[in-house]
């Protein structure tokens, strides 16, 4: 579904990888290694050379707003411009999904109409995710989606991400939580020190199966968990 071809980001080797519909790949690397910059470049929020295409359409063939309706960058620190969370979602069908998703993330309905400034960091993070998924983007770029969440909220967030994958959307996940990557992702993109230790053959694309399991095993595990065929 997503094809990244020689994406050029300063300080990183050209990146090439594919993500299929229903797949989740993770980006791993130490802080400052460029994980967020990769996500922003794919969403076309920062200029970057190379080619990125989604379902056959290169990003420059589409107006940037249309591209970003399909390729959604979800920031680690969601920013707000209206007073309440609900006011950030204007289209009626999106509002419906937004409310459902906020509920599935364990947020009480009253929080949608509470002043944003009164909400906790974790509540804002989950509302930001619900807002980003409300209009059903095709590719979801998640930057530390559970960074500020407790165990229960993390589990609910991961359920929502799995649900997106089952709906044949694709996810690129940036996370510092190794166990979370193991639970969600089929493959990992390794950056910086992580890339060096992976002893990657020269010239190959930089995506590699994590040492813990091969991609096939991982897909099989996911499929078993959800009762679908890989």
């Amino acid at each position: 579904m997503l094809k990244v071809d020689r994406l050029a980001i300063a300080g990183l080797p050209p990146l090439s990888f594919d993500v299929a519909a229903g797949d989740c790949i993770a980006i791993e690397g130490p802080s400052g290694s460029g994980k967020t910059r990769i996500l922003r470049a794919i969403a076309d929020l920062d200029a970057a050379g190379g080619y990125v295409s989604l379902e056959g359409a290169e990003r420059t063939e589409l107006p940037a707003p249309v591209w970003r309706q399909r390729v959604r960058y979800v920031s680690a620190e969601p920013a707000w411009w209206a007073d309440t969370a609900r006011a950030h979602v204007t289209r009626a069908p999106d509002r419906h999904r937004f409310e459902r998703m906020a509920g599935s993330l364990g947020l009480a309905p009253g929080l949608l109409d509470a002043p944003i400034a009164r909400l906790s960091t974790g509540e804002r993070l989950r509302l930001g995710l619900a807002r980003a998924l409300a209009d059903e983007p095709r590719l979801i770029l998640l930057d530390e989606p559970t960074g500020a969440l407790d165990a229960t909220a993390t589990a609910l967030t991961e359920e929502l991400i799995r649900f997106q994958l089952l709906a044949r959307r694709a996810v690129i996940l940036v996370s510092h939580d190794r166990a979370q990557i193991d639970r969600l992702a089929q493959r990992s993109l390794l950056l910086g020190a992580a890339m060096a230790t992976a002893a990657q053959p020269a010239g190959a694309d930089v995506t590699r199966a994590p040492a813990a399991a091969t991609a096939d095993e991982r897909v099989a595990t996911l499929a078993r968990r959800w009762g679908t065929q890989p």
Partner: protein
Amino acid sequence: MTYHPLGVFDLLFAGLLLCLNAGVSIGFRLGLERTLLIAALRMVVQLGAVGFILKFAFEQGSPGLTAALAGIMILVASWDAVARSNHRIGDAWQHWGLGASAMLFSGLVGTLYCVTLLIGSEPWWSPRALLPILGMVLGNTLTGVSLVLDTLATTTRRERAAIEARLALGATRIEALRECLASALRTALLPIVNSMAAAGIVSLPGMMTGQILAGADPVEAAKYQIMILCVIAGTTALGVLLAGIGAVWLLTDNRHRLLSERLVSAPGQDATSVR
């Protein structure tokens, strides 16, 4: 009442009033004596020079000289509009160009509309009508343009994360910056709206006062003042809109990205310096 020309002694007696300012400064140790003296001298030299230059231009009545003076006025005004800003949009040339083109366009449109359609002076470029009107239009557009650029830069910097969030959710650059642009436009248009509301009650506008002192019929002076305020309001709106939209265009690119590196703080340019 007829026109009473002022002599040198009249001006000297008027200048005597500045001793009050000097007295306050000395009495309260404000340390303003030097600044006050320089400001007073600048006022006398600048206004005197303008008087003589305008007199010369009126006597010559040449379109070339009129155009040259208008050009100098636009250059100086556009410099003034951007020089005291606390932020810069783009590099120095882009920032100045933005102010200059907005003021050039709106100043010319407003002035030409006024001298051709409203006053109908003969010939239309007659410096006696064109230059003072251009001056009044530029003076007010200057305030508006500098307010719109400064407010837009400040709010865009403050709301940067929210603007990027809207862009990431698929908003166009105009949608993402709409609130910042709206608040900048509102701030920039308020002074002229206020001065229209206050005209005649709180303040007697300078031009009308001058006409009345020069012996004109007060009703005629009021009609002129109404026309001038309308022209000023319209051209300010035009200039402010051009500068605001131009700034949004400079701060974003055609892939609807916010170029926040183009927002530069310009400290050391004192917004409160004595003019």
